[in-house]
C-alpha cells in the first residue's frame, strides 16, 4: 500500500514521495520491480486491446483486396507499362505490410512487446541514471549513492501508467506528454536525491537527457548498419 501511495504521489510531483523513496531500504529493488511490473502490465493490456481491435474491426484483408481490384480495374492502370505495374504491386504489398505502423492491429508485434518494453525501459532507466549520477555527483558536487539514486529515479516511470488505457482499442497516448512528464519526475528525483538547487537540478536533467540520446543514436545507427549490410548481401555485393 505504501509503495502505491508513493507511486501516485510521485506521479503528481510531490517532493515528499521522492524523499520517502530516497530514505527507503532496498529502494533500488523496489524501483526495479516497479519498472518491470508496469512495463509488463502495459504490454499485456496493450496486447488485449489489440486483440479486441482485431476481433471487432473490419476485415483488412477484404479491404486490401477491394483496393487492389480497384487499382487493376481502373482506367489509369492500363496506361502503366508492365514493369511499372509489377513495381506498383510490390509497393502496394510493402505498404500493406507496414500497416501496423499506422495503427492496424498487430497482436504478434504487441506480444513481442512483452519482452522488448521491459528491456527498453530498464535500459533507459540505467543509461539516464548513470549519466545523471556522474553529472550531479562529480560536475555539480551533489551527495548521493548510485543505488539510492536509481531507486528514486525509478519513480520517473510513473507517467507511463496512462499507457494502461491502451486496453481500449485504438487508444494512443501522446508520447510528448508522457516523456515531458517523466522528465519532470526525473528532475525532482535529481533535486531531492542530490540536494541540488532548482537551477542545477534543471541543468543536470537537460544535459543528461541530451547525452542519453547519444547511446540511442549509436544503437539505432548500429542496427541500421547491420540491416543495410544484410540488404546488400541479399541483393548482391556492390560493384
Amino acid at each position, binding site marked *: 500500500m505504501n509503495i502505491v501511495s508513493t507511486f*501516485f*504521489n510521485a506521479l*503528481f*510531483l*510531490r*517532493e*515528499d514521495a521522492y524523499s520517502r523513496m530516497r530514505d527507503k531500504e532496498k529502494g533500488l529493488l523496489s524501483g526495479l520491480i516497479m519498472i518491470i511490473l508496469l512495463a509488463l502490465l502495459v504490454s499485456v493490456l496493450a496486447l488485449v486491446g489489440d486483440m*479486441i*481491435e482485431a476481433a*471487432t*474491426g*473490419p*476485415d483488412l484483408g*477484404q*479491404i486490401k483486396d*477491394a*483496393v487492389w481490384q*480497384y487499382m487493376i*480495374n*481502373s*482506367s*489509369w492502370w492500363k496506361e502503366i507499362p508492365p514493369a511499372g505495374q509489377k513495381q506498383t504491386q510490390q509497393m502496394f504489398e510493402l505498404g500493406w505490410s507496414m500497416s501496423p505502423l499506422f495503427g492496424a492491429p498487430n497482436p504478434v508485434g504487441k506480444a513481442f512487446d512483452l519482452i522488448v518494453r521491459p528491456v527498453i525501459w530498464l535500459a533507459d532507466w540505467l543509461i539516464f541514471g548513470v549519466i545523471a549520477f556522474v553529472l550531479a555527483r562529480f560536475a555539480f558536487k551533489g551527495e548521493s549513492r548510485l543505488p539510492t539514486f536509481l531507486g528514486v529515479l525509478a519513480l520517473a516511470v510513473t507517467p507511463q501508467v*496512462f499507457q494502461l*488505457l491502451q486496453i*481500449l*482499442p*485504438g*487508444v494512443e*497516448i*501522446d508520447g*510528448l*506528454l508522457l516523456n*515531458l*512528464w517523466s522528465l*519532470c519526475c526525473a*528532475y*525532482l528525483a535529481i533535486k531531492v536525491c542530490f540536494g541540488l538547487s*532548482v537551477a542545477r537540478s534543471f541543468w543536470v536533467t537537460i544535459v543528461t537527457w541530451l547525452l542519453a540520446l547519444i547511446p540511442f543514436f549509436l544503437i539505432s545507427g548500429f542496427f541500421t548498419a547491420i540491416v543495410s549490410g544484410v540488404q546488400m548481401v541479399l541483393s548482391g555485393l556492390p560493384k
Partner: protein
Amino acid sequence: MRDFVSLLWRPLKLDVNVFEAQRTSPDAFKRAFLVVVVVGLLTGLFAGGVTFGNAYLAPDPAQSQKEAIEAMRPFLENMPPETRTYVQEGMNLGFRIQRIVQADRGKFLTDQLLEALGLWFTSPIGYLAAIIPFTLLVLLIARLLGGRASLSGMLGCTLLAVTPHLLDPIGILLGAIPFCGACLGGIVGLITFIWSIVIYVVAVAVANSFSYARGVAAILIGLAVSVGGPTVLMLLFAILMIVLGSLAGGGTS
C-alpha cells in the same frame, strides 16, 4: 467535495484566492489533474456519445451510396469524361469499403462503441497534452523573468484553465441547429477560448508571484519560442543539408 466543486467553479470567476491556494498546496497538481479529468470526462462523454450515435444512426451503405451519387450528379455531369471516370471509380471504391466495414452490423457497432469509449477516456489526456508541454516552457521563461513558481504549483494553477471547456457540450448542441448552428457553436467556442486564455494569464501571474504584465510577457515569449523554435530548427537543418550537398557535389566533381 465542496472544496473540489469550488476548484471547478472559482477559476471561472477569476478568483485569485483559488490560484493562491493552489500555489502553496503540496497537492496542487493532483487537485488540478482531477479537475481536468472531470472536465475531460464530461465533455468527452458528449463527444463519444455523438460519435457512437452517428455510427448507430448511419444509413444503410446502399442508401448512402444512392444519396451520394444523387448529390454528386450535377458536379459529375459538368466534368470532362476522363475526370468523371476517375471520380466515379474512386467513389465506387469508397462505397465498397463502406460495405465491408458495415457488413456485420453487430461487429461494426461494437467497434464504434469501443472507439467512442476510447475517445471518452482519453479526453482528459488531450487537455493535458495541450497544456502541460506549453506550461513547462512558460515556466522556464517565467523563472528567467523573476518568477518563483514550483513545478507542481505552476501546473496546479495553469491546468485550471480547462474549466471553461465545460461549455463545449453547449457549443456542440448549438452547432446542431440548422442554418445558424455553426455560427452559434463558433461563438461559444470563441468565448471558451478567450475565457481559458484569461484564466491562464491569471494562473501564470499568481503561480509566479509577479504582475499580470509579466505573466502576459512569459506567455507571449513562450508562444514565440514554440512557433519560432521549430521554424529556426528547420531552417538550420535546410542550411546543413545544402552545405552537405554542396560539399558532396564538390567532392565528386
